[in-house]
């Protein structure tokens, strides 16, 4: 199930998550805990599916920094979702080298297959998709990745995309 939350509901971080936070913070010198912000936001997104305002506020509290310091970072980096996404977010590389080996037809195929526009979520909450910039796999294009593990799928064809979506649908519904 997708962990979509009302933005007004307070968030709680589990003890397991908090211990992961502590492990990250231990990598930096004393007083430099703000360095943990990017890794911690990744952990939050992996747990909740996106970085909501209440979650970011809790992160700010945890790191003893101002909430704005978290918002400005979350909105700067493209990997953090500021609204809920499908359980599986298909991110297709759309930059030069992937484009010349057929990224656009792949994105058109995904749009048609899922029936939702770029950035929207399918009604069952399972999928969303978007074009992203270079994923540094230019020799194996077209490519796409799926978070939070960022599993990588290379040399895409419409057939391999169909199979991938079919497999994920089965996995997501079971």
């Amino acid at each position, binding site marked *: 199930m997708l962990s979509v939350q009302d933005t007004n509901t307070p968030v709680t971080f589990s003890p397991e998550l908090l211990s992961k936070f502590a492990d990250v913070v231990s*990598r930096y*010198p004393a007083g*430099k805990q*703000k*360095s*943990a*912000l*990017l*890794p911690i*936001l*990744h952990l939050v997104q992996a747990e909740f599916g996106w970085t909501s305002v209440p979650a970011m506020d809790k992160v700010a509290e945890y*790191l003893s*920094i101002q909430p704005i*310091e978290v918002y*400005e*970072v979350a909105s*700067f*980096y*493209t*990997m*953090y979702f500021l609204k809920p996404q499908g359980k599986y977010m298909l991110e297709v590389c*759309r*930059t*030069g*080298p992937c*484009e*010349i*080996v057929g990224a656009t037809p792949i994105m058109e195929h995904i749009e048609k297959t899922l029936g939702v526009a770029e950035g929207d979520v399918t009604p069952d909450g399972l999928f969303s998709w978007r074009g*992203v*910039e*270079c*994923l*540094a*796999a*230019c*020799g*194996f*294009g077209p490519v796409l*990745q799926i*978070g*939070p*593990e*960022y*599993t*990588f799928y290379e040399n895409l064809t419409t057939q391999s995309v169909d199979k991938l979506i079919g497999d994920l649908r089965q996995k997501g519904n079971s």
Partner: protein
Amino acid sequence: MARKLLLEHINVPGINTFDVYRSKGGYAAVEKALKTLTPDEVVEEVKKSGLRGRGGAGFPTGMKWSFLAKPEGVERYLVCNADESEPGTFKDRYLMTYIPHLLIEGMIVASFALGAKTSYIYVRGEMMPQIRILEKAIAEAKAKGFLGKNILGTDYSLELYVQPGGGAYICGEETALLESLEGKRGNPRIKPPFPAIAGLYGCPTVVNNVESIAAVVPIINEGGDEYAKLGIGRSTGTKLISAGGNLKKPGVYEIDLGLPVEEFLYSDEYCGGIANGKRLKAVVAGGSSVPILPANLFMKTINNEPRLMSYESLADGGFVSGTMMGSGGFIAYDEDQCIVRNTWNFARFYHHESCGQCSPCREGTGWMEKVLHRLEYGHGKMSDMDLLVDVSKKIEGNTICPLGDAAAWPVASAIRHFRDEFEWHVTHPHEATTRNFGIAHYADPLPKLEATAS
């Protein structure tokens, strides 16, 4: 066949594990450096090797190291730049995926040379699988006594951590990377002060690319002088080239610098020629930021000399008829590719990735994207080409970091070399929207079979 220094054992099963890597002579450079050399001697070897930064700028690594300030009682840091995001470049991903211990070994030796007690590998956030691979490799190395307290019983101790980014091309710029590592937006800093004086947390810091750090391992094993014997002129050693685009055999290749481009492109040992029996139209030789060249200018310099894969030969002719080695992101375009479309695609990339700090870049990249979009989709004007050149000139050199230049060069060079293809889009608006390629008379003048038969 050329010697491989970095990828020699890449196909050995299990080379990603400590034991197999060690059995192939891995971590010998750590033993040699920590037990027989002083930090300054390590720096000296790297200087002698002539190694130039493999991330794109090509600045001599040993010299960069020697600039590091060493005030008493202040921490020093080594940060590895693994934020590989330059379109066309995927060598670092390859190296970290298949032979992670080479990077770890290089990090230990380089940290020792610089006197760093804590070092970070900043990996782009999308490479979570590689982050997991590196963390596992670090844990293995630590368990075997190559990291942590008193490495191999010496006085030297080192902690090594992996830091994920958040998906921002700009963080490949070293000061933006340091900002990001401090938990902030990736806005590049004004230099000076350079990171060698005030870098991470205001402390002296060296930032090196993954491949540069990995190259330290063979340099220490064989000596800087031996390393410098490979290559040509001031382009010493070997270089990883990420070959992509319309090639028969795309992939990562380790070449001796100085290899003729014709051999790299057409021989079966490397790219194997252009895919699907097509002809070469254009090449981006060092990642999307460097000037694009039409096939004829890429194969031979303006003086009709065969071009070589070296820093100097690729730059021969300056920006009028040459390009740059950059990060080694090699993109080949066949005769069916549209240069206008490609230029628009790259302009969109730079607009998307501009951090927004400097007006010329923030506004200029957006302008260029819009103008190129209308050209590609058949709504362009003849005056647009001059407009684009004008905008690119106003970005170039007027920004804090090189992203502005990187955005300007591909546009300016595409118009310089392919102007009639842009004009064709204006004079043939209907065709510009219905067929996705431009005009093909730029294709490689060399008969393709003559080259492949050799």
